[in-house]
């Protein structure tokens, strides 16, 4: 489960380095563009870590539920949130990977 999240962060890192390289090259031709790629990367990392956190919370809720320490509603909600977070994170990862591939195809 958490491999999906780490694959997302590594994909974001790759895209980050690649896009910042492009940004450096682009500034030679045009006036300094605002470093939007870095901010975007930060947001993506935040999303990924948020998803990881939600997944951990879901796991601990499930364990507590099995032990009888949490109510059924709490467990169900935590697991559903984890499911949603994971799905969203995977979708973002796929988009980032696709974007990275597109950028790498760009002729310099």
């Amino acid at each position, binding site marked *: 489960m958490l491999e999906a999240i780490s694959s997302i962060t590594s994909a974001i890192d790759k895209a980050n380095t690649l896009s910042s390289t492009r940004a450096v090259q682009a500034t030679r031709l045009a006036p300094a563009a605002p470093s939007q790629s870095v901010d975007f990367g930060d947001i993506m990392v935040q999303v990924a870590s948020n998803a990881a956190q939600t997944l951990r*919370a879901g796991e601990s809720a499930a364990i507590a539920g099995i032990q009888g320490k949490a109510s059924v509603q709490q467990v169900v*909600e935590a697991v559903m949130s984890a499911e949603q977070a994971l799905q969203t994170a995977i979708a973002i990862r796929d988009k980032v990977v696709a974007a990275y591939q597109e950028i790498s195809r760009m002729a310099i």
Partner: protein
Amino acid sequence: MGDIYLFDVASRQAQWLAVRQATISSNIANANTPGFKAKDVEPFSKVFDQTQLTMAATDKGHLGFDAVHAKPAKVKKTDSWDVMHSGNSVSVEQEMMKAGEIGREYSLNTSIVKSFHRMLLASTRSGQ
């Protein structure tokens, strides 16, 4: 992010309904206890306005919905249909009617949540 608000409201209503179910169960169990007065919970609209909307988990030990703070206050309903000689005010018919309400509302609540959960998953899944 409209979906997240919906899940929050549905969660609170589900919690409120569960507490109400416990209250009604208590009333019915005590239908023949002398001096027992039937109880009910405050209406959901009242409870909902009082509780603040808490954001999702802030530390990994947190289980999400904080049930303690959202516990609805109990009120003694004095408009029960009749009061018996023994001082018992539980009307089984009235309680069963309330139970029917709870059952319906809970069913609707879980169906809505299930539906929106699926929609959310489907929206992130499709397209590539």
